[in-house]
């Protein structure tokens, strides 16, 4: 069996720690010098999933909403989407809904209902009394969206990051296999939709 490339998109409000999480996972380091991401960048990492060696390509994009129009170019062909919020900011949690919707619109996966998301509540290293979003609240939301796996992480202290991304890679691999079915048996309607979607990238 051949190896695969899994494309993972990391989304969430500005400043919740998307770049930090990605760097902690791939490069095993944390810096408080990360700047706001302008445009987009990605890192790749090799991982074993169910005895298969896969390459994850983790895409980090700008957190400000007004840059989401660029998303089309980056989201296409995604196998999993990681939604990140800051447990110390209620607002960053409340916007998860719109991040999820926006992703589904722009990436337009074949089966939006079952597209794999993973939610990460980041910055749990901060003192407990600053916390704004309880674990229960987050898990309730995740359940309501079709049992999205939920992890509480700290990119700074490297808490739960590895575990979270293992789930990401596992679900992405599964998604990739299902996408493959569409490639083998193309659905004319879906192809049509993809071709009209291309307008966005020729600026």
């Amino acid at each position, binding site marked *: 069996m051949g190896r695969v490339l899994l494309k993972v998109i990391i989304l969430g409000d500005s400043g919740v720690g998307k770049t930090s999480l990605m760097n902690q996972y791939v490069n095993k380091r944390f810096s408080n010098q990360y700047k706001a991401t302008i445009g987009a960048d990605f890192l790749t990492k090799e991982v074993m999933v169910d005895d298969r060696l896969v390459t994850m390509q983790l895409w980090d994009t700008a957190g400000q909403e007004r840059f989401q129009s660029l998303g089309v170019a980056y989201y296409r062909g995604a196998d999993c989407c990681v939604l990140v919020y800051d447990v*110390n900011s209620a607002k960053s949690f409340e916007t998860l809904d719109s991040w999820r919707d926006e992703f589904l619109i722009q990436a337009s996966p074949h089966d939006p209902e079952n597209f794999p998301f993973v939610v990460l509540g980041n910055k749990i290293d901060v003192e407990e009394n600053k916390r704004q979003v309880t674990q229960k609240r987050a898990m309730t939301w995740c359940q309501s969206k079709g049992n999205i796996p939920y992890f509480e992480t700290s990119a700074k202290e490297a808490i739960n990051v590895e575990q979270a991304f293992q789930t990401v890679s596992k679900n992405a691999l599964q998604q990739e296999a299902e996408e493959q079915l569409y490639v083998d048996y193309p659905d004319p309607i879906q192809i049509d939709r993809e071709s009209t979607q291309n307008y966005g990238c020729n600026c």
Partner: protein
Amino acid sequence: MVEIQRTQSESSGSLSPSAVEESKYRLLYSKSRVYVNPTAYARDNIPGFVALVKREAVNPTYLLAWIPETLLCEKGTDEWDKFVRIEEKAMLDEEDEDAVLIDLPTQRPESYAFSVPLTSIYSLLVHPPTLSSWHGTIGINLINSSTLPTLHFHDDESFSTTLPFRYSKSNSTGAYPPTSLPSSSRTSTSWGGEDLLSRLRPYAHLLRSTLQPSLFIVDPSKADIDTHTTQIFDDDAVDDILAQSSYASSHSPVPAHRRPRPLHSVPANTSNQHPTRPSVLHRSLYPPSISTTQSSSHARMALLQSFSNITRATRHAAQNILSHPLAKPIVPHLPDPVKSLVNANGDLEWGSWVEKGGVGEFESARVYLARWARIVAEEGDRARKREAQALPSSSDVVEEISPLGVFELLHSTINLPSPKTSRDPAHPIDEALWAKWFDKDGRPKVRLEEMKCQVFRRGITPYGNLRKKMWPFILGVHEWDITDSEREAKWEEKRKRYCEIKDEWCGVPEVFDRPDVLEERHRIDVDCRRTDRTQPLFSTSYEDTADNGSNGDRRYTTISPQMSDIGAQSPSNEHIDRLAGILLTYNFYNKELGYVQGMSDLCAPLYVAMGSDEELTFWCFVEIQNFLRDQSGMKKQLSTLQELISVMDPDLYRHLEKTDGLNLFFCFRWVLIAFKREFPFDDVLRLWEVLWTDYYSNEFVIFVALAILESHRDMILRYLVEFDEILKYCNELSMTIELDSTLAQAEVLFLSFAQLVADIDRRRAEEATDSTSSVLRQRGTSSSEGKASLSKVAMPTLSDNLRDLLKTGR
């Protein structure tokens, strides 16, 4: 390789006219409308025929000749017809069974006619046509080191190159050894000079120099071969190893189109094909001219020679190279897998680090290779410059080490002057000079344009606080042609205005805590806390200074929302708060725009350069935003850049098209924040003051982007076959770009573009007035329609966006 045995050894140097006249000459090949340009004026150009002539004898001599049309006319129509007939025959690739014998005209110096035996030619300097110089040229250097007049191939007027059916016939190359002229190159790339080279090949060994790809050595000596065949970092060889690595070829998960390109079957160093690269810039990528490279590049050659060892898959090659003294500065830049070779034992081979990795490393390997190839090339270039500087200065050397470097050869045709950079960043404007520009009352003695010109060329000294004085003038915050006291009065108004706007939110809780304002405060604050934190002003935090901001009215002097609103962020400090305050105030000054990520990146350097003066920073920032808005947003800028690439470098454009990269998102960050993230802080200041002058173009930033892309286009074309790879490569260029050479290139690119536009307009005008007279001038050998359609194909159309690039001043 064609080897023609020549037993004859007598003739080197021109034949004497008397010998010429007695012999029989057989015309093998002729081509019309090849000009000699005795002066720079087009009216003096002399049309003629270039011909290959065989002097019949036991040991025949082959001669290369150029005969002006006037001289042929003197001989009568028969003679003229012979040349036309041979041109026709050659074009059809027909075997010339029946010999066409001619009188070789006597050489007459005033007519510029010449005929020289091939054995007397040392080298040919071949420049194919480019977008800006329609006519390819061939220069001929003789062994006795004299040079014959350069031949200009006006293919658009010549019978053989304008005839429509020539392509269909050209596949039969039976008359010529197949290696000399593959049919593929024939059908797609032919211009008159290339055709001539292929005709010469059966009679002489033409060796294309790797030192200077435009140079072809005729019947090279062994020493010549050694000098001119050493590979300059044979990237193909690296690809070869990748392609041949057993893992990659047998079970590579990489789709075929993503693998490195297959090797040419012909070894690169003997390939005589002359690739046609229709880029205006293609020559910029060639090393500088032959006359100087030989003397100055030994160290570079040693390094590059070591690299060529890789091609032979030498077991220890990698270590040899990496331990070479010249390679030392490169090592820190190498990807870890390659770096590990430096210390690895001798058993480790090149392919293994590729095999060892999976898809990811294989893919990123190409990005690494591209990066690495660039660093090697740059390092080689630097070493070459160091060597050149060490040599006693001659005019040649000075030419070579000018900041333009490889761009020196850009427009080397006679009619166009080479654009050169006017920048002199080594001598920035200092306080003394600045003071000299003003009268006692503070009224300037020089014009605003002159000041900006000086800023563009020299920049401003980083010492003292001259930028704080000058930037407000460059940006138009301060008026130029007034006295100090008038200026102070006007500034006082602006200062007041700033305070008024700031007071709209500062100390007004009902505004300050309004949900929409809170949201903007959040956006601004989160970004300001992570902007330029290495700058001394921003590096401390309230926690460090023990002033943790607990005093009551801090709430209204800073814009930081409660942590519950912004989440956990890096600690702030007084200057970060003030920076955020300036941006929030801007939000009230320009209510439609709102805060856009990237604004903190644009504002922070202003704050630093203005010595944390809030009002000055604010008004400079307003001007920068005007500056950005004038360019009507990212979308227009990126599409302008896209059009510019299509005109200036069609090859790159096509490559981006193939790789889904035409959206140019890999330039997004560059343009959005004017390269703030691509250069170190001090360089950003130097770059911005140049951009703000609008000296050449209001959108000089586009040319800076093009300059960066152009200096990496070879790596991009060769290695990067997917959009994500180009994005990664470009993102990783950050902090590796040399500012002054980039600006010099940007300037040259602008000048080339301006020349190109002028050239196109001139041709359009000529075309309009010329359509009737051209028929007469063509002597019936080509149809005027043929010419018109040809020039239409060759000339790109220029959109308004592109023409706007020539505008300066707002």
